[in-house]
């Protein structure tokens, strides 16, 4: 059974009319036309969209087994992080790696090889994955792990769903004593200062910086650096102890309508950045924060993507190698401030080495250095700016994150990911995946 729907990524641009089916109900049709799997649609661009056949994972939503001694969890690929936390945090387990929203499926986390605020020490999700079952182009399921079908294992982690449909996975949850995070906020007066702080705190579990991308001159790149540790039971005051796993639901707000396109402009963005930085200065120091507001601050505002209006938005996220990071980040920030196109949400994060326990991957995004992520309302001007940012990223041997991309050119993609692209294409050809699994993104980038 199929239905029709207009689909977009989280950025709400571009949008396509698509035929949609549920993955896992009927597998007999695998051979009939190329398809792509889609979880909760939180990749920003066009990577989970296929106009002829988009297969949603909404019916692959069951837990299969859990071993409390080892933390080993086996589940179907459509289960979301929100479900995992709701089920296992009250029993003292948390995800080893989590991206900035809990509305993502495990299948999506594998396909994008997501990272979190602990990448510098814990690696990306692929570093914690023991195995997954992949529905391949020939209609057969294959168990993929470091020891079994290892070529598919490497290609699929970060492979944007283009090697097959991920059906099940197994990975270990991490024991935690509480659901609280000890957060420390440190203001950084400039970009160099922010980097210095991040480098000094590599031994901390979580670190991330919000960066003011409007400030210029000496204040260019001024930031608020956030460090975090899982709080032990002994760290909690009586008030938090009464709610050990911070499970009292936050009251969510909802963006009730599309903001008009003019609502986000140079002035409102400038005012917001100024206000945010000043508020951060006042709040500097340590505080206990619940897991939900610490890891998923934006989840509290349902459909926050609507603040960018009907035109949608694009997130630009790139990673730069460590030795080039400072120069590269200066280059990017100067270009952005000069353009007058600021961003509400600019995030700077120190990444660790690409492989930290898991296999060497082909299209996975992280590389040791720094990653910068910014949101821009979609416009001709911002798209042109991002083309210029691509050139700066390339110049410093960096790359753009495919899970965020909706606008890069094939040429840029190939230059950024180099020979890995050929290796990935080969892996796809050898398994028949090139014809069976396609997205709007894979078409645009010639993957």
């Amino acid at each position: 059974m199929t239905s029709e729907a207009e689909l977009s990524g989280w950025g709400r641009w571009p949008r396509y009319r698509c035929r949609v089916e549920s993955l896992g109900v009927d597998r007999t049709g695998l051979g009939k036309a190329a398809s792509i799997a889609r979880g909760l649609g939180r990749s920003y661009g066009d990577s989970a969209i296929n106009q002829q056949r988009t297969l949603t994972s909404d019916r692959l939503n069951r837990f299969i087994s859990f071993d409390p001694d080892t933390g080993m969890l086996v589940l179907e690929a459509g289960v979301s992080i929100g479900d995992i936390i709701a089920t296992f945090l009250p029993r003292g387990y948390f995800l080893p790696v989590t991206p900035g929203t809990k509305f993502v499926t495990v299948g999506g986390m594998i396909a994008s090889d997501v990272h979190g605020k602990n990448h510098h020490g814990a690696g990306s999700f692929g570093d914690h994955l023991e195995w997954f079952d992949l529905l391949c182009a020939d209609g057969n399921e294959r168990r993929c792990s470091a020891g079994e079908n290892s070529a598919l294992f490497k290609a699929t982690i970060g492979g944007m769903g283009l090697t097959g449909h991920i059906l099940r996975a197994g990975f270990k949850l991490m024991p935690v004593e509480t659901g609280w995070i000890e957060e420390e906020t440190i203001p950084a007066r400039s970009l160099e200062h922010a980097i210095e702080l991040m480098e000094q705190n590599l031994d901390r579990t979580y670190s991330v910086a919000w960066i003011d991308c409007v400030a210029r001159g000496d204040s260019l790149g001024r930031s608020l650096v956030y460090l975090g540790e899982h709080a032990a039971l002994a760290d909690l005051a009586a008030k938090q102890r009464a709610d050990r796993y911070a499970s009292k639901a936050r009251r969510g707000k909802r963006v009730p309508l599309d903001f008009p396109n003019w609502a986000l402009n140079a002035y409102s963005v400038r005012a917001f950045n100024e206000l945010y930085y000043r508020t951060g200065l006042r709040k500097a120091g340590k505080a206990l924060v619940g897991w939900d507001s610490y890891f998923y601050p934006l989840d509290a505002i349902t459909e926050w993507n609507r603040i960018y209006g009907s035109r949608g938005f694009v997130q630009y996220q790139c990673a730069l190698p460590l030795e080039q990071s400072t120069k590269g980040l200066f280059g990017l920030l100067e270009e952005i401030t000069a353009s007058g196109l600021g961003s509400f949400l600019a995030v700077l994060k120190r990444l660790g080495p690409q492989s930290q326990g898991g296999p060497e991957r082909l299209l996975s995004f992280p590389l040791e250095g720094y990653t910068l992520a910014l949101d821009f309302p979609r416009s001709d001007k911002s798209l042109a700016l991002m083309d210029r940012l691509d050139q700066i990223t390339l110049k410093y041997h960096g790359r753009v994150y495919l899970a965020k991309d909706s606008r890069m050119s094939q040429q840029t993609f190939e230059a950024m990911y180099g020979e890995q692209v050929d290796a990935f294409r080969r892996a796809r050809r050898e398994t028949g995946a090139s014809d069976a699994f396609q997205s709007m993104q894979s078409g645009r980038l010639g993957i």
Partner: protein
Amino acid sequence: MTLATGKPVLLLGAGSDIAMAIAHVLAGQGHAIQLAGRDPDRLKADAEDLKIRHQVAVSTHRFDVLEPETFVSFFDGLDEVPHAVISAVGLMGDQDASSGDVDQLKLVIDSNFTGPALALEFAAKKLSGLDADTAIVGISSVAGDRGRKKNYVYGSAKAGFTQYLSGLRQKYHGTRLHVMTVKPGFVKTAMTEGMDLPGPLTTEPAAFAKNVVAALQAKKHVYYDLRWRALMGVIKAVPEPIFARLKF
């Protein structure tokens, strides 16, 4: 009403999306769950999922609504007498096939009326023997409110089931057994997959299940979504000469 803490709840036709959604709500409240369906092997994955999420005991059982001769041994064979029995058994069937063929017609009538009615009659007898607050829930359909060209075989079977439940309710009035009728409109399930459903009248199974359980706890006799009650009220009020000409 409140079912005693932890006591089992039996779902007949447990493979349906509505049954499974209700099972999750009740398991979330700590009840043990008994899943019964034609093919218990197909219920195993859902049983594991329920166990892992809610840390309650979950068992699977073979139950075929078209085999009424097995009903007594089925209920006797359960490890523990459930405190609530919920029937989500049903079959939409194909209107054209079932209106012109006696076997097809019987299949739809037996799946939606004869079988579930008899099963709940046995269940009621069993439950009323417990010294506890117990409940029978029958999931019928708004399709039983008025016969329409599109699905009147299914609709008349559901109409029969609705009336049966009404009688059963009277029979056990004044005892500790509560009988509730559920009349779903459109719920996004496997049964309605591929249908072009009107958004404002369509519910997700999880939200629907929550409402059903809340209605049961509030001791409602009939759970009937307000929008549907209003819509069907209008449809029922249309005089027959006009109704006969309508195309929907």
